[in-house]
């Protein structure tokens, strides 16, 4: 049996190296076909009619005029309620009806002719404090006491109080949600932009069943070789996944239905807001004693996210309460590291304010309390030191409030975070063909994280072959099932299942080859393009010669996620340096440092890209992006990309990424990386701004108006 454990550092020829993603050339030359790009013969185009009301009963849907419009082929109802008397929409942007026509323009024209009659109902779209929202629109989700908070605060030499929070943002995937659906007899093929290739076929079949179209789940094939971003919002086929198939069935032709940008931002995913009133107490030397918080936030019409506060720091005495504010806004979906960025902002900003009150450098304050951070404490100590070195923290840091003259103030902030990232349940099949070619197949997906490349690296490493010798097949539900890509679980699931499958295939190859080398399978190894007797290159065959011994039979190795090749739980530290123009309120990122561990790194290049990308997404949610709702009309004011702002290339400053690896890290096995580095930027940047201007901007994004308001409230604003 080939030892399937990860090879030691000196035996790795590919794992951990900087390797370019293998599908990169397809993407950067425009040849990669995404779902949005699939043009099937006879393709029709569908558009969706969305609710214009935040909350209403629907008393009538009249599609008669729409159906007479040029090119129109069919319409489909998308409401979740079956019976007309139950029809109700709960947010502006909720899909109601889909219309399919020959062209996009015709479908859009026809969609405009659908007449919806609403009977408006009371609504709330602002995620105001629960007391203001009232009993009808809020709900206490949890209340918890640990230790003796009252005694803790009594023993504290210093207490600090503040309000902190993060507003609702959206996923804003570049490729909007949707799919192309095509029937071939009773079988359905769906080119879907999805994080869940192996999972959504069954959901579509169920949805169609409830619409009176019977199709067995195994007759639904999902294809998604490339997808334009998901970030947690593309696990489900959604109402449009079912409607698109229904329209294709009715029209007897393939149908494309991708959401338009306004619909994407209103309905296809948001990150819950979270705000908290916090009181935190410590001894003079910085030792944390007590935490009290009343937090709230909105997940949309239903209660959802439940934070665990304080984040990471296991303060001995805790009193916490969290309430959901029920708003008539697009429902929340998992957003890269669900609830962690919000909990991190609330906690690490409150601790930073406490450190400032103690006149302590927050670096020293966090180190003072590092023993209550749990299992990652020793990682944090190493990572804090590394980050401080890369940021020159001790040289640059100054007490709160940049005292240098002029309106532009500089400051430093830091934060730390944790995430699980243990591999999901995935299967992989590795085939060795008699001509020496190798395929590795799995019903997983590449969200841009590099899944395809990871599978190829692990297979090639195992066989001692160059990367190009392996063809990875993913993005199709016909391959062995793999779980959805969420929570940074894919790299662990796929690297370990691929390794096991490749070792299984190699064992079979060795068994076929051993007699011709006059030895037994257990004495063979695959190294440097050869199959040879261990350590003896005089008794060897080239990979091609070895595979030729298979005759006409292809070998298939199978593997599943292997718990002993992976683990969970990582830590990371980030530092930010900003300059803030106190006259305009504009925050500028000068530099960010991210120090991150993730166990054994498979591809250092794409791993670093995950961290760079997370920092940039972090800058965006800390400074620019925000879903703005208007209580007067119940509508979203910025469902577009000119007012829903993403950071541009000139907005992100200098970024420095350092991956912790080597002894103590590699031996933990593979751990997921997508989520953790996106957690800290909010707190690190907020703390840097507070350090620069001397006052806390309570909420992110720290837009100029909020910065100026914070300065005004403190009496520190600059008047011309």
């Amino acid at each position, binding site marked *: 049996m080939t030892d399937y454990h990860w090879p030691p550092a000196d035996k790795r020829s590919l794992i951990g190296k900087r390797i370019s993603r293998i599908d990169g050339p397809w993407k*950067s030359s425009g040849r990669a076909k995404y779902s949005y790009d699939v043009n099937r013969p006879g393709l029709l185009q569908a558009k969706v009619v969305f609710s214009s009301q935040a909350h209403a009963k629907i008393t009538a849907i009249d599609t008669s005029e729409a159906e007479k419009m040029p090119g129109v082929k069919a319409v489909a109802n998308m409401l979740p309620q079956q019976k007309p008397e139950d029809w109700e929409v709960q947010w502006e942007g909720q899909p109601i009806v889909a219309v399919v026509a020959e062209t996009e323009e015709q479908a859009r024209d026809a969609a405009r002719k659908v007449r919806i009659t609403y009977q408006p109902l009371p609504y709330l779209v602002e995620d105001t404090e629960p007391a203001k929202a009232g009993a009808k629109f809020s709900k206490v989700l949890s209340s918890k006491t640990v230790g003796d908070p009252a005694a803790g605060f009594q023993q504290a030499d210093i207490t600090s109080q503040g309000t902190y929070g993060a507003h609702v943002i959206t996923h804003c995937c570049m490729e909007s949600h949707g799919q192309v659906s095509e029937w071939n007899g009773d079988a359905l093929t769906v080119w879907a932009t999805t994080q869940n290739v192996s999972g959504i076929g069954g959901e579509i079949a169920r949805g169609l069943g409830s619409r009176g179209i019977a199709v067995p789940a195994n007759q639904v094939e999902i294809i998604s070789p490339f997808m334009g971003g998901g970030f947690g919002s593309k696990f489900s086929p959604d109402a449009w996944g079912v409607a698109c198939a229904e329209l294709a069935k009715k029209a007897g032709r393939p149908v494309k239905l991708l959401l338009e940008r306004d619909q994407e931002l209103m309905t296809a995913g948001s990150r819950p807001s979270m705000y908290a009133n916090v009181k935190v107490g410590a001894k003079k030397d910085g030792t944390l004693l007590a935490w009290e918080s009343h937090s709230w936030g909105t997940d949309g019409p239903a209660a959802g996210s439940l934070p665990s506060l304080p984040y990471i720091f296991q303060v001995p005495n805790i009193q916490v309460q969290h309430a959901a504010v029920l708003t008539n806004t697009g429902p929340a979906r998992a957003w890269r590291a669900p609830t962690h960025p919000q909990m991190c902002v609330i906690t690490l900003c409150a601790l930073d304010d406490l450190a400032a009150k103690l006149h302590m450098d927050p670096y020293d304050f966090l180190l003072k309390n590092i023993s209550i951070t749990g299992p990652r404490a020793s990682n944090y100590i190493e990572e804090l030191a590394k980050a401080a070195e890369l940021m020159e923290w001790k040289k640059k840091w100054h007490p709160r409030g940049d005292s240098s003259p002029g309106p532009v103030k500089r400051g430093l902030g830091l934060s730390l975070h944790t995430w699980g990232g243990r591999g999901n349940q995935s299967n992989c099949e590795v085939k060795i063909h008699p001509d020496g070619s190798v395929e590795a197949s799995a019903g997983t997906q590449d969200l841009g994280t590099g899944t395809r490349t990871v599978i190829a690296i692990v297979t090639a490493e195992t066989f001692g072959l160059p990367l190009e010798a392996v063809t990875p097949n993913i993005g199709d539900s016909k391959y062995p099932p793999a779980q959805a890509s969420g929570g940074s679980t894919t790299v662990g699931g796929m690297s370990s299942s691929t390794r096991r499958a490749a070792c299984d295939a190699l064992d079979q190859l060795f068994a076929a080859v051993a007699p011709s080398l006059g030895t037994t399978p257990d004495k063979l190894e695959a190294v440097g393009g050869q199959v040879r007797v261990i350590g003896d290159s005089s008794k060897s065959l080239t990979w091609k010669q070895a595979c030729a011994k298979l005759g006409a039979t292809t070998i298939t190795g199978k593997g599943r996620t292997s718990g002993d090749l992976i683990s969970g739980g990582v830590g990371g530290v980030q530092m930010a340096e900003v300059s803030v123009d106190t006259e305009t309120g504009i925050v*500028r990122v000068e530099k960010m440092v991210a120090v991150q561990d993730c166990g054994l790194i498979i591809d250092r290049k794409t791993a670093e890209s995950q961290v760079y990308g997370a920092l940039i997404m972090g800058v965006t949610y800390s400074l620019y992006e925000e879903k703005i709702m208007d209580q007067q009309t119940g509508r979203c004011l910025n469902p*577009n990309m000119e007012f829903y702002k993403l950071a541009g290339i000139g907005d992100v400053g200098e970024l420095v990424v350092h991956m912790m690896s080597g002894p103590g890290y590699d031996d933990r096995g593979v751990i997921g990386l997508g989520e953790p580095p996106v957690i800290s930027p909010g707190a690190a940047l907020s703390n840097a701004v507070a350090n620069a201007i001397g006052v806390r901007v309570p909420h992110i994004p720290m837009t100029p108006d909020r910065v100026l308001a914070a300065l005004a409230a403190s009496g520190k604003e600059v008047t011309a």
Partner: protein
Amino acid sequence: MSDKDSRPDNLPNQASSKNSSVTGEFSRREFIKGTGIASMAVSATVLLGDELAKAATPQTTGAKWLGPGAVPISLKINGKMHNLEVEPRVTLLDALRDRLDITGAKKVCDRGTCGACTMIVDGKAVYSCAMLAIEAQGQDILTIEGLAPEGQIHPLSQAFVDHDAQQCGFCTPGFVMACKAYLDQEPNPTYEGVQKALGGNLCRCGTYMGIRHAVLQAAKKGGLA
């Protein structure tokens, strides 16, 4: 923020269409004014529905009437002529993606903000979602597919690979084309120049670090024509 709002002067079309977000004093208004009823129809689609289109007639606008039905047009794309029929309101982006199956340019914001649809028209980077197909007649349209024959890779695309300047890759073709337009005019790019020239393209995955390096590498290596 500031970079996004200060576009380079040497990329007029890109600068104009890409600057339309808040201040945008020329972009859309200019091209609507310039092309008359045809673009009125498209702006009406966006803004007011077909009532506005009905109100505008050749008498009120003094423009040549095209449409509203499909009209035959010819487009020169990547050196090859294509004949097709489109309604005058169809954008250059939709004409290529929906009618000609040229899908390298992506549809994301569909209103001249994000740059995912960037093409090079007569040497200038444009947002093809904010240009009408009929308007692009008689011009040289270069899409990402035209950079290199299928199976080969353009040095600029290769630089994006080498520096991992892409994740999901949906914004990437637009960035490559914006880079191409920039480097065609500025063979010796600076870090600051890159920030400004690419300020009209947006990425959600956060690949800007790789893009910065890719542009500088590509320029250093030359051979970008």
